[in-house]
């Protein structure tokens, strides 16, 4: 039974921290985007696209959290013992930590991209690319967390 506590803490960290990262990131881009749209309402679509980019970390976190829940006896599976519970907690850390940090920094990169689009709207592709490079590490962390949780 005690193992389940750690599994839940792990799932909560994955969902909570990665979600925080996305919330901050999306918020940063939203502020920049609103400024640009106040000058040029036609840029709403382009800036919205950039704003959505840092939103994925939260989803990755939820994904790991959900797999843990369905494995650790909350939505299915059997309650893990102490050792397994701690392992699950450890497995959740990559997406929790990287999700938090990369969400914020992707938000900053995307906000700078909003500035780029404000001046040269034809360069949207490059603005997106700059922001997406940050996300690579969240994807890698998601993968690491998934493989670890899956392997336990």
């Amino acid at each position, binding site marked *: 039974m005690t193992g389940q506590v750690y599994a839940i803490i792990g799932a909560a960290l994955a969902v909570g921290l990665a979600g925080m990262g996305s919330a901050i990131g999306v918020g940063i881009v939203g502020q920049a985007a609103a400024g640009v749209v106040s000058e040029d309402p036609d840029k709403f679509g382009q800036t919205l*696209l950039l704003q*959505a*980019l840092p*939103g*994925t970390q939260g*989803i*990755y976190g*939820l*994904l790991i959290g*959900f*797999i843990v829940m369905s494995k650790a006896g909350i*939505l299915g599976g059997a309650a893990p013992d102490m050792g397994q519970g701690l392992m699950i907690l450890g497995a959740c850390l990559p997406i929790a930590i990287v999700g938090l940090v990369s969400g914020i920094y992707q938000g900053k990169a995307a906000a700078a991209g909003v500035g780029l689009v404000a001046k040269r709207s034809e360069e*949207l*592709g*490059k603005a*997106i*690319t700059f922001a*997406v*490079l940050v*996300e*690579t590490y969240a*994807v*890698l962390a*998601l*993968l690491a967390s*998934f*493989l670890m949780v*899956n392997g336990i």
Partner: protein
Amino acid sequence: MAIVDMKKVFIIGMERDQEDILRYIQRFGRVEIADIHPETDPLGEGTLAADPHTGLERIQQQVESVRAAISFLAPYAEKQGGFLAPKPSKTLEEMRRLAEDPGELGDIVETVEGYTEALADIRTKRLQYTNLLEQVLPWERMDAPFGDIKATAHTQMAVGFISQEKWNEPDRESVPEDLYVEEVGSDQDMICVFTVYLTDSDAEEWLKDMGFSRTAFSGLEKTAAEHIAQYREELKGLSEREESIQNQAKELSENLEGLQGLYDALSVELSKAQSVRRMRRTDTTFLLRGWIPAQLIETFNDGLENTAEDIYTWYEEPAPDEDFPVLIDNPAMVRPFEFVTDLYSTPSAHGIDPNKIMAPFFFIFFGMMLSDGGYGAVLALVGGLALWKLRLKGTMARMAALLALGGISTLIWGALYGGWFGEWNFGGRVGPVWFNPMDDPIKTLIVCFAFGFIHIFVGMGVKAYQNIKAGRVLDALFDQGFWYVFLIGLVMLALPATAAVGKFMAIGGALGLILTQGRKQEGIVKKLLSGVMSLYDTTGFLSDILSYSRLFALGLATGVIASVINQLAAMLGGSWYGVILQVLILVGGHIFNILINLLGAFVHASRLQYIEFFGKFFEGGGKPFSPLSIKTKYVEVTDKKEAHAL
């Protein structure tokens, strides 16, 4: 590859035919008119710049004022037809006549200009009166007219403010005898006071102690109440005037469609007039230089000869290092993918058009990252319907087609993986055609890396092809060939069955790289050193390959979130409101999931092209081909001849 060959076209003609010839070129729509600089271009020697009286400025001004009128009237117009309504159609002749003589539409534009000015005037005046009103409002209860507040021979009369704090202090009771002070109103935390006192008495000292700040109302004569009534009256009048203008604007907005037609007609004339500015002339002739796709020359020439008789035309190849405008021509299936490349950069004129090679990879990667058969069907349907019903053109059509193609790919991958709206296997009834990635994540990762390996190798292959085509066969061998041998060797080394061969290949490849990668350096030591250092690029290659793990990770995100939605919905149910909630969660949840993952799949599939693939060979920075053509925003031109496929 698929960058269209461009030729320079030169036309010398008589000035009297200039208008007809330009109209022909515009209708032909596939000639870009280029500048002629007489300083650098011997051709332009002795010619004159375009006649400044061609009316370019006039048309520009007209277009601008029609545009302003449209954006002024648009909010008043009743929306009709919406998104699906077909555009009104016009012939070229109609457009031309409209541009020459806008008739009553011209008067409407002028009227609207008047409205705009009147509304701006109303806004300024309203601000003015509101400010005045705010100033006078606190003094409403004072019955002395402002005009009467002035000094006499022995007394001073003044109005001003004392802070609430000071006013409420007890020592206010010690008012000097020769001072009269009365509270007449308040403004936030200030008290408005009216005061009369003897000049040179200690009243002034008292007022100073109280922090009295004197205020004056220059130009106001009557009492505050009278002024307030006057300002309110003025403001009411302004509102009435504004309303009447708005009503008139609403009536005028019936002509919006006509104005939009006029806008298009004038824009067509404008782009023609702008082209004239690029040309050169003498007293009776003109000289035009442009770019034309080589395969259209014959059709163009035939039509041109029918347009004017006294005309001299010739064509030239671009100089070897000259950058010509880039027009891309691809088969219909590849065209949607041009959208992805265009987002990045137009290929350089001397580079290669990557679309054909990139398309299959984008197709596969996009589907892999969504990998849900149900979602794929939805996307294919939405994209297909948009393409079919909305009669989209240009970029929008490409996006819709890309959506439809991506949907098909997603459908295929969903079937391979066995995921349908987040349900894996449907209780064993619809099994995966290939395998379920959730059951065997390592195998899925290997599949992703294999795709990455192929993708990157193809990218290097394109670079090798470019090198060979440019006659640098050795470069191709050294820079791509040895890497091929080395990297394939490394992979084979990892597999037990081929390890022995792999060892030799890896060592051979590495030796080749060590010996050749420093060939641009001077001195044997430096050459070898940079050769050895080049092996360090293997890490870059490794990180490129690892980057393809996103193909799995994003597919995972779609699938797992979809099943979360299903499980959430499954928890409800049982009662009638439960079923309603279930439907809401299922529909809303899956739409949200499709949208967010659609964005992810598109962005990451593009990124894999931009960074991992294009990085190997792509040369961007080309200037897109922008021919003189008939471009309309609101109107469909019915007789716009487009006999050419490009």
